[in-house]
């Protein structure tokens, strides 16, 4: 009996392969986008984890000293019994890219990256000593093909990109620090009863790495952004699935009734339906995860570039298949299918044994239900607002976004119905009256698809506004900030001094850009010294400042801070900030500093040099009327390597490149979401058209031609979509406002002015109408070609 019942149930899909495809594709797309985002996030987090855990396992405590740890400190600690191991770190500039060189001592390291360990066992003289080989990630190795000044390199999995790991002897030679130690790593297990470190090496401070490290924390907001997008796509996809499943249940009502009447127990029937849905969900989920993997693989290089550009976080460009997100994707597909089919199954369970087949499969939304839904939408608005006040800014921002979007989607059907009712009340002639009423009657069936369209369009408008506003602000800011025509970096202090002497008669101004690292508000930050020069006074992108700001700063009596530091540490003008241990200055101004994840302080160069005597004096901005000639002179006459000189134009190009890539992913996800919404619209129209014959037949019988009917259908679709798009524009602007004023501030630490781009709205409107026309085209053609005999059959078979 079960087999027969199952056969009967499945025959529905055989007869309607299009519906089956809708269900599968909808669920697949939803799962794909969601799992793609998860895959990207997982991969990125794995990279941060690898970066933080150089020695395997949890990141270890380190001992550091101002100006570096000495060999004597190291030997003293070892001889006192402390299990410490030296690490020497520094940056190598090779063929224009900056690489992090990490020297470790394999003899005392608490653990070794497995690739190094293995190589060490095979041929230790390859690994130990100044002539040894070093290790780097395969993709980094690929970029270093033929680069001069590097030791022999071997690719090793598990090393984060952009890093070179080598024996400390080799690192010391490459960095020119024969006895250098950046920090001492403490082994997780230490002997008992050791004398305190402070007694053995008083200058050392112990640092416990924060969970996940600075990078993971910085990038959290970025990943939250992606996750939010993934969830949005998933929600849009679920609209499709819900529609398809609901329709299939409605259409099978007579069959279910017959099966029940023939003696199939309700419980078996429900179990069969559930098994059917879960099997379909499993298939769609598996396909979706595969598709998601492909999408993630295509997007990951851009995400990696973004993370590197924005946060300096190195993420490998290669995607690994990780069971965690694959299983997660499947679970989400199953859960989504269960969610989408829940109400339908419930109705099957409640259905009276001999209930009549309903004349209109989709007519299930009464006015009261619409009002309830709208009320729920309003409640979500309120909830979102409340959440944005109560929760931490970023989570609150997303809660506000979610409330706004879903709330608006829920209210949409009521707005549409109300609008149509108004139109109907104004219509006098018969056909328009019928048109208004009939459209209103279609709203429940189309509402899910229209809601999906609303969400997708609002996102397009919102994200478009955000990106364009950001681009406008960013470009202007770059012009201000990059005032110097050339940026030159000396390799040594001596060369720096010679460079200044060389440039003095040749350039309009030489502006030192010297900085020292510090920690502010518990995070790494950089303090810059700058020479008082009109370049700064005229160009620096100040957001707010005291009137005498530049004079105060020039006298070394005040400092400027960047916006992200001011926001994170809640700094206001006039407040004192401890810039370096024991050195505080009042804040005289706040400047915008887009694209920089870290806090930054600017103060007088003389004041900084007095505080930090060994300030590296290497980088300089150069003002010149003929930068090209000066660059030439620097290379040929002074002998500076070309990659030590960067001109304004290439920095700008680079920065804009980073900027564009940052939003590549957003744009790609946006297009995909829009595609999903368009698909939802198409399926909804297809479904409706197949059931509309009973409504259209009487109109046809009154003399409206099939062709005319088709045109009316097409126009109606376009109008519905257009109306939805009109509603989507204010919603999108609200979305953009939240993104710019709440989410950006929380995620990146800067607020951006909002600009509006009406052309984008037109585009959204056009897209919506186009999608609706395309979606309605097939049903219209079908209608126009329906033989009159079938219209007549409606009257013959009237139920």
């Amino acid at each position, binding site marked *: 009996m079960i087999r027969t019942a199952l056969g009967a149930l499945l025959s529905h899909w055989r007869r309607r392969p299009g519906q089956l495809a809708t269900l599968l594709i909808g669920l697949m797309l939803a799962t794909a986008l969601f799992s793609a985002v998860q895959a990207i996030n997982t991969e990125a987090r794995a990279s941060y984890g690898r970066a933080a855990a150089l020695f395997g396992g949890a990141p270890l405590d380190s001992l550091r000293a101002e100006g570096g740890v000495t060999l004597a400190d190291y030997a003293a600690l*070892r*001889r006192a019994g402390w299990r410490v191991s030296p690490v020497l770190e520094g940056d190598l500039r090779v063929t224009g890219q900056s690489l992090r060189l990490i020297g470790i001592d394999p*003899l*005392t390291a608490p653990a070794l990256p497995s690739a190094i*360990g293995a190589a*060490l066992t*095979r*041929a230790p*003289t390859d690994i130990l000593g100044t002539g040894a080989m070093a290790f780097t990630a395969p993709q980094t190795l690929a970029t270093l093909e033929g680069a001069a000044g590097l030791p022999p390199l071997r690719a090793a999995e598990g090393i984060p990109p952009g890093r070179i790991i080598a024996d400390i*002897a080799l690192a010391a030679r490459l960095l020119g620090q024969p006895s250098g130690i950046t920090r001492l790593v403490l082994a997780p297990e230490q002997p008992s009863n050791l004398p305190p470190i402070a007694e053995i090496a008083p200058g050392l401070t112990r640092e416990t790495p924060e969970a996940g490290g600075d990078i993971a924390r910085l990038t959290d907001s970025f990943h939250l952004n992606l996750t939010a997008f993934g969830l949005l796509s998933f929600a849009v996809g679920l609209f499709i699935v819900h529609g398809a499943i609901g329709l299939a249940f409605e259409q099978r009502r007579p069959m279910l009734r017959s099966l029940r009447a023939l003696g199939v127990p309700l419980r078996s029937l429900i179990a069969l339906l559930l098994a059917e849905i879960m099997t379909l969900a499993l298939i769609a989920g598996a396909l979706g995860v595969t598709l998601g993997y492909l999408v993630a693989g295509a997007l990951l290089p851009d995400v990696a570039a973004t993370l590197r550009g924005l946060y300096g976080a190195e993420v490998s460009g290669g995607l690994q298949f990780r069971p965690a997100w694959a299983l997660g994707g499947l679970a989400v597909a199953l859960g989504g299918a269960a969610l989408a089919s829940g109400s339908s199954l419930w109705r099957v369970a409640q259905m009276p044994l001999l209930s009549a087949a309903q004349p209109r499969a989709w007519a299930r939304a009464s006015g009261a239900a619409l009002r309830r839904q709208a009320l729920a939408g309003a409640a979500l608005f309120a909830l979102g607002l409340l959440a944005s006040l109560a929760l931490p800014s970023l989570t609150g921002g997303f809660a506000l976004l979610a409330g706004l979007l879903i709330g608006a989607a829920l209210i949409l059907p009521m707005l549409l119905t109300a609008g149509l009712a108004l139109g109907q009340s104004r219509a006098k002639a018969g056909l328009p009256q019928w048109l208004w009423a009939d459209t209103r009657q279609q709203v429940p069936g189309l509402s899910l698809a229209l809601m999906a369209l609303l969400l997708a369009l609002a996102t397009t408008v919102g994200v478009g506004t955000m990106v364009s506003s950001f681009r406008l602000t960013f470009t202007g800011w770059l012009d201000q900030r990059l005032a110097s025509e050339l940026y030159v970096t000396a390799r040594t202090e001596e060369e720096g001094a010679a460079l200044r002497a060389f440039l003095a008669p040749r350039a309009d101004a030489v502006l030192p850009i010297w900085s020292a690292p510090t920690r502010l508000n518990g995070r790494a930050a950089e303090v810059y010294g700058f020479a008082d020069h009109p370049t700064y006074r005229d160009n620096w992108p100040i957001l707010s400042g005291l009137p005498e700001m530049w004079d105060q700063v020039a006298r070394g009596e005040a400092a400027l801070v960047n916006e992200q530091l001011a926001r994170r540490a809640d700094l206001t003008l006039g407040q004192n900030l401890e810039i370096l241990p024991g050195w505080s200055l009042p804040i005289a101004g706040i400047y915008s500093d887009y694209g920089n994840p870290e806090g930054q302080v600017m103060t007088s160069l003389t004041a900084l040099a007095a505080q930090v005597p060994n300030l590296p004096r290497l980088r300089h901005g150069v003002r010149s009327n003929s930068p090209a000639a000066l660059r030439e002179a620097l290379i040929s006459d002074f002998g500076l390597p070309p990659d030590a000189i960067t001109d304004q134009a290439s920095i700008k190009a680079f920065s804009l490149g980073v900027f564009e890539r940052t939003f590549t992913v957003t744009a790609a996800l946006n297009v995909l979401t829009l595609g999903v919404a368009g698909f939802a619209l198409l399926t909804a129209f297809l479904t409706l058209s197949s059931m509309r014959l009973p409504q259209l037949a009487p109109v046809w019988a009154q003399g409206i031609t099939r062709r005319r009917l088709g045109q009316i259908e097409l126009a109606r679709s376009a109008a519905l979509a257009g109306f939805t798009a009109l509603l989507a524009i204010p919603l999108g602007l609200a979305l953009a406002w939240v993104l710019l004023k709440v989410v950006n501030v929380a995620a990146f630490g800067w607020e951006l002015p909002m600009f509006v781009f009406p052309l984008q709205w037109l585009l959204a409107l056009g897209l919506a109408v186009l999608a609706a026309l395309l979606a309605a085209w097939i049903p219209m053609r079908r209608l126009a070609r329906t033989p009159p005999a079938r219209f007549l059959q409606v009257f013959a078979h009237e139920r």
Partner: protein
Amino acid sequence: MNVKAAFAALLLMAAQATAQGFAGLGTQAEGFAVPERGTPLTFPQDHQAHPDYRIEWWYITANLTGPDGTDYGVQWTLFRSATAPGTDEGWQNPQVWMGHAALTTPTAHHHAERLARGGTGQAGVAPAPFAAWIDTWQMLGTGPDMDSLALTAEGEGFAYALTLNAEPPLILQGEAGYSVKSRDGQASFYYSQPFYQAQGTLTLPEGEVPVTGTAWLDREWSSQPLSESQTGWDWVSLSLDDGRRIMGFALREEDAPAFHSGTVIEADGTATPLSPEEITLTPLAMAQTHGRSLPVEWQVTLPGHSIDVTIKAVNPEAWMDTTFPYWEGPVRISGSHTGRGYLEMTGY
């Protein structure tokens, strides 16, 4: 992967262990100094490191007795191994140091290992007063010319602190300190102090044990002490109750009989080198330990000196599971003479 295996490989130099003798001691000595016959040893300079030679060690073994007569053995060793000759300040220094410490009881064998690179002060050897150290382990000279030493080391489950004092002069092994190690003529510089009286405290998991006994220092440096066909050695240092000391070794050959050599040292310090025919070491009984079969009982015969003794491990489990693993432990002597000593077996 641990560091130990890495160091093993360092010493084994490129995985040709069988062709290059145990622990790489048979590898070519390119760039390194090679011991030359007739070079006089001078002290205290030669107590210090010889960084132009590839390998070197400061090696102490002690046979100790507790208040209840229980036999204990103690080992303290500092090895030096260079990836290139010479020395340098800081990380460029090509020297690598390795320490081994062990405490053997009839029922337990505790041991530990430390690694360090040269040029940092983490490990090394210094003059006036003499000091050899790696991390917390120390061998400190408390008098002139290595006559008195203070020895400390600790590891998981054990620690010891001993003072050593010796009267007679240092013993130069082989021909005035030039010790031939193969028929091909490979050699090392080698001197010993076999006459230390030792006392101190052992710390075991069960508690502290005061001990007294004898100790033996071996100093050896070379760049290629084994020939490439030699696969390992069996080495004994015996303290006979009549006051005599015997050092003997058999270097096992791949396809030939073992190369034997040794020294008989009278109680007054008079040393007589033994030619390869004058000493034989014959395995008597095997034991299984750490998955290997090792001879833990030997017959040692010196016909010219009317010595024919059997030596038997106090604890057959004295396996040093270190970077390059080997067996090292105290032995009891019976037969024509009685006494105690140390046995070392490598390359099994």
